[in-house]
């Protein structure tokens, strides 16, 4: 079959060749033209996420004998944080926007309004906000360079807070109630806090030190709330049918709220702010090989990995009330790790103590007592 007079070896395949060619072109153009998957409406189910839902954290991810879940019921509103304020700050009713609201009164009818508003992370542009406030005070906008000259920085546990102090009296405004804005912007990864004091210029000047102290106190309280809520974040929840275990907490060990990956956590304090971290972690299945886990723990304290044979020689078996554990004890530099693990009924359990060497040595007998006290319900 010779359709056209092309020279070469593909003549008899020409119809098929052209057909394939056109198909290829059609596919390429169709693929280019068709909607991408990210333009479709998606429906899915997820476990409760604290960023969206302030409902109680997943209780099934916690041991029944875990510490009291104080403060773990979600992300606290900034305004609900207990932060002391100066006695002359009169609390005002909160609105949906305001998470903190106060009024300060001065002499000759002078007042200043103080507010705390939380907005999304994208709202935190300092120049835009400063110019918005200047506009409120009837002043022309400023440039980024001019802004840099009038801003102050305040270092807080949630990051650096930018403070601006703007002066100006809008046309027809009452100087007893307006003339100055002192504001602080605390940007965060998910939201931005806006602290603002607006009112009589002299009164705002007098209240400025208290205002800055209040900003710092709220930011500190936010950091504490965040660490609690982060610890309670139920991401990657463990199997809800996970068996419960019970133990006897040794004297001197303080149980702390577990994180999402931990079944339980403890801490022990020593001298000079030294601390030991003790964790219980469980996984369905094997939870990785012994060598992988031991080498990961070695890496955490700066030790080089070992091969399987060397690791096998390090593992010491230990019999407890309801099971037998494999244990290792490793020291690297100033740090030391003691770990024990067991696998039973399709689930692996890891118990790990990590901290300064001398403190670990002191707590070692308690760690073994702790392991012996563990009872599995299944």
């Amino acid at each position: 079959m010779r359709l056209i007079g092309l020279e070469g070896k593909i003549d008899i395949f020409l119809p098929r060749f052209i057909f394939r060619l056109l198909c290829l072109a059609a596919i390429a153009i169709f693929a280019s033209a068709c909607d991408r998957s990210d333009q479709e409406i998606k429906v899915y189910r997820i476990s409760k996420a604290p960023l969206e839902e302030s409902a109680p954290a997943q209780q099934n991810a916690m041991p029944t004998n875990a510490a009291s879940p104080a403060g773990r019921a979600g992300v606290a509103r900034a305004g609900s944080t207990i932060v002391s304020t100066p006695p002359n700050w009169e609390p005002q009713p909160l609105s949906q926007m305001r998470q903190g609201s106060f009024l300060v009164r001065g002499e000759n009818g002078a007042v200043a309004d103080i507010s705390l508003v939380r907005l999304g992370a994208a709202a935190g542009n300092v120049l835009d906000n400063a110019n918005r406030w200047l506009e409120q005070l009837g002043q022309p906008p400023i440039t980024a360079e001019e802004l840099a000259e009038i801003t102050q920085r305040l270092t807080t546990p949630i990051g650096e807070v930018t403070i601006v102090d703007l002066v100006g009296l809008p046309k027809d405004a009452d100087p007893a109630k307006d003339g100055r804005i002192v504001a602080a912007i605390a940007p965060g990864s998910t939201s931005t806090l806006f602290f603002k004091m607006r009112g009589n210029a002299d009164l705002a000047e007098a209240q400025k030190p208290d205002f800055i102290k209040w900003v710092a106190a709220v930011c500190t309280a936010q950091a504490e709330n965040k660490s609690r809520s982060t610890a309670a974040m139920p991401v990657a929840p463990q199997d809800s049918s996970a068996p419960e275990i019970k133990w006897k907490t040794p004297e001197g060990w303080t149980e702390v709220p577990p994180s999402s990956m931990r079944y339980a956590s403890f801490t022990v304090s020593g001298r000079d702010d030294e601390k030991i971290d003790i964790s219980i972690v469980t996984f369905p299945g094997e939870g990785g090989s012994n060598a992988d886990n031991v080498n990961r723990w070695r890496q955490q304290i700066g030790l080089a990995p070992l091969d399987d044979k060397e690791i096998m020689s390090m593992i010491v078996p230990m019999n407890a009330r309801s099971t037998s554990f494999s244990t290792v004890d490793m020291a690297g530099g100033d740090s030391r790790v003691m770990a024990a693990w067991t696998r039973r009924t399709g689930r692996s359990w890891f118990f790990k103590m990590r901290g300064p060497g001398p403190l670990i040595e002191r707590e070692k007998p308690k760690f073994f007592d702790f392991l012996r006290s563990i009872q599995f319900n299944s």
Partner: protein
Amino acid sequence: MWRRVVDLFTSLKLTIICLAAAMVLIFAGTLAQVHLGIHEAQQRYFQSLFVWWPPESRGFKIPVFPGGHLIGAVLLVNLIAAHLKRFRLAWRKLGIHLTHAGLIIMLAGGLFTDLFAVESHMQLASGETKNYSENARGMELAVIDVTDSDLDQVTAIPDTVLRHDRAIDHWSLPFRIVVRNFYQNSRLKMLSEAGNGARPIANQGPGAMIAVQPAPRATGVNERDVTSAAIEILPKDGGSLGTWLVSDALGARQTFSYGGRTWMIALRPARYYKPYSVTLQKFTHERYAGTDIPKDFSSRVTLIDPERSVNRDVLIYMNHPLRYRGETFYQAGFQKDDSATILQVVHNPSFIAPYVACVIVAAGLLVQFGYHLVGFSRKRKAALA
């Protein structure tokens, strides 16, 4: 007819035209970044079949130039067709075949990357755990049924749908959503601060106290649009529950009740959930002594995958990404005060294509030049003899 088609697709002229068009497109697209920003310019010039005029939706649009996808697709077809037409099974052509095969893989890989790769970010503060990443540009309207105590049902409506379809009727929702206003970029002001003429675009929630002003699109690399919309909830059996303002800049949680269930609405960066979680253990940011110039920054994270019983620590730093379940986590940035790390999460099924293509092209060139070198040296030897 057939011959004309074959001649057209195998023509070297077509290759030259495509390459010239690509150069013009790259030049125009680069200039357009000044006004549109890199992301928008990429979409309009390179990730499209045609460059349209006028660019804004004014009821009509005219294609004024071929887009990146069209030029790439035609170039790919042209390359394959020309190669097949001139194909000769001979050793001396092996280098040419390999080089062309490498180029074809590279072009096809580029097209597939454009079509199927998803880039997102995961921002983690120290100790924070996340099981989702977020689109740095694309937003979604999340309508979440939060009634159940342990699970939320999320209906995620992308912003592209919000723009194009003003009324949304979806099987997962017992009501219709009508987009009354949509602002790709906006500024939010309290009504009391916005002047006398300002009116709210919503009548429910905090949006009833806020004025929304449209703003020009953000064009800087590190700038983001503040997307806002007014959405009205209309039960399918008639009536209206009201209009809410949803915005990226609005931190307040907004809920309403309907049909015995509680619903939450939020306009947020589009999320990509994962069957595993990542916890930031430590973010390290070293600077050159006496300067603020970054020397090195790295993130030590713990990867937890209950399904696969994975629990391991990983150090992510420049040129050492974490690859897991088809996704790659790169160290992309950090918050100014080092309070959080930013990981770029890339899902690219054809990420291997450029590597394979480069190896094949290099091998092809080596064979081709090697063949000629050997031939040349033989001739020289023969001449000398």
